[in-house]
């Protein structure tokens, strides 16, 4: 096998990884702070993709309308997240996990059909923004500019998120809420507001990654339930609720998938689920997570 081929496989794995990080980071944040496993996260991702397509059509079918369209789509999804959290989810915090799981699953069903109703079942595509057309040769591998952009964005969001969580006042509040909600509440902090904010940020990230995926893969019904399982694998490997864990989890997932295809072509799917199971058996809280009560 030529080195350039391996390298291009590596770059492909990195692109997948950074995409997954964009999606899974929101899932992990919500679990870390609110202890809710959000099945609807994949649906938010799907809505981001459909809305981006819709916004591009509304704004101007020119190639540059992609950027505002992506931002508008992500913001709309964030708004939807806030509505869902404020009106419905908050009443389930005291209930058993089962009810929260089923609530988010109800959202999966409803949003999936709503998308079918609004946009039909045909495949939709969005063209790549003109600025990022073309590609660059790195070590013999052809890397599209757009993939490069995704990798850099993933890295930027990882570093930015880490700075915010560890350095800022809001980040301290979020971390405190994930450690001991009752204590934070007793100290007079607005825990409800923190929860709503976290859910908004998480939905924004889901919507944004959905919007950003449109130039490289087409929008289809069913992309919601497919992506959510992958996002689960990533957060489980890294550690439910751990921010950097999610980052490393995405890298491991992306690379296992892209090299697994070379070694066992038909069992790469199997290998990532097996990896998830092994991590859960050996270290349920993941590589970088911490055990929860």
């Amino acid at each position: 096998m030529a080195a350039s081929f391996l390298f291009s496989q590596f770059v492909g794995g990195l692109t997948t990884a950074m995409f997954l990080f964009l999606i899974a980071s929101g899932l992990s944040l919500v679990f870390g702070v609110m202890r809710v496993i959000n099945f609807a996260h994949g649906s938010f991702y799907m809505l981001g993709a459909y809305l981006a397509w819709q916004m591009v059509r509304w704004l101007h079918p020119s190639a540059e309308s992609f950027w505002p369209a992506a931002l508008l789509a992500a913001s709309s999804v964030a708004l939807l997240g806030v509505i869902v959290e404020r009106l419905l989810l908050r009443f389930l915090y005291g209930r058993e996990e089962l009810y929260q799981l089923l609530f988010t699953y109800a959202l999966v069903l409803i949003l999936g059909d709503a998308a079918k109703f609004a946009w039909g079942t045909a495949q939709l595509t969005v063209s790549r923004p003109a600025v990022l057309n073309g590609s660059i040769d790195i070590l013999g591998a052809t890397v599209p500019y757009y993939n490069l952009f995704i990798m850099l964005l993933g890295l930027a969001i990882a570093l930015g998120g880490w700075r915010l969580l560890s350095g800022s006042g809001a980040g301290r509040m979020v971390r405190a809420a994930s450690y001991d909600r009752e204590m934070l509440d007793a100290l007079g902090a607005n825990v409800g507001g923190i929860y709503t904010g976290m859910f908004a940020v998480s939905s924004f990230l889901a919507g944004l990654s959905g919007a950003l995926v449109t130039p490289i893969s087409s929008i289809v019904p069913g992309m919601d339930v497919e992506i959510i399982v992958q996002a689960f694998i990533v957060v489980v490997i890294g550690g439910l609720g751990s921010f950097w864990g999610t980052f490393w989890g995405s890298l491991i997932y992306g690379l296992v998938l892209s090299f697994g295809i070379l070694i066992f072509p038909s069992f790469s799917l199997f290998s990532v689920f097996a990896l998830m199971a092994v991590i859960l058996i050996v270290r349920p809280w993941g590589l970088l997570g911490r055990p929860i009560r």
Partner: protein
Amino acid sequence: MSGADIALSRRVAWPLWRRIPWTLIVFLLAAMVPFLGSRYDTFLGTQIAIEALFAVSLNLLLGTTGLVSFGHVAYFGIGAYACGILMKTYDVSFWIAFPAAGLAGALGALIFGFFCVRLSKIYFAMLTLAFSQIVWAICFKWNDVTGGDQGLPDIPYPDLDWLSAIPGFGDSSIGDRFYILTLVLVALSLAVVWKITRSPFGRMLTTIRDNPERAAFIGLNVRAYELAAFVVAGIFAGFAGALFGIFNRGVFADYVFWPKSAEVMIMTILGGMNYFWGPPVGAFALVWLNQEITDYTEYWPFVLGAILLVLLYAFPGGIVGGLVSGFRHLRHQLTARRA
């Protein structure tokens, strides 16, 4: 206390409705469906019976033991593939393939459950999901054995010609005969599960659900009991899967995909997971509703999601839970008026 009072209190303890053998009546009514209803009713009846068994097997974990399994479809799928492969590829009789499906489900549950019961709550749910996705990936990709994404079409019906010896079955269709077979097997399975939940073993499972620390404290091997429950649930899920593969004229990888686990869970909760008859009622309601609603709209998942929301916020006890509390309320008011 006067004699009349004692007679009254006896009547309250064993009221008339308790002395009627409801289970038998429901079974006999169900057995009449091929004679009274249309072919389509028989078709729906078969599906309801199979889904009811599947949901009851899940409820052994969910309601009885308090284990939230998000991958129960794995054992259903293992049973379906085991029975399908034996009957189609190896031409084995149904009477061997069916028990083999239960055994396969039990074996899968034993291997996966061994690891799952070591985890608590959310991690347990995640690991059951991971295992079921492993089963799905295998079914989806192992072309030589499972047919891969093409699945295993045309699984033969079991040979039920001997049923025509029974009066009234002389000219029944194979669909009717398979329905009767399904009904009998499901009824027997439900009777066994009923016995299990009422046995000392079943009581221990409920103790573990209510207070695992205390159960461990009084010397119970909690993990072993949970594993045993997991295996028993796997057997009956395997049975249900075997019947479903034949009913559906084929086994496909889609059955094992994770949303199916959510579906059976919704069925269980819809009926009421705190009652033995909750899951069968939920299966009946969901299959029937699905059939009614798909006449009007293709957006069945939307309706299902809406039902689930109403259920979670307004009727967490499910249909049976709602009926029981409504009935209690009514009786309370009646006795209050009498007093």
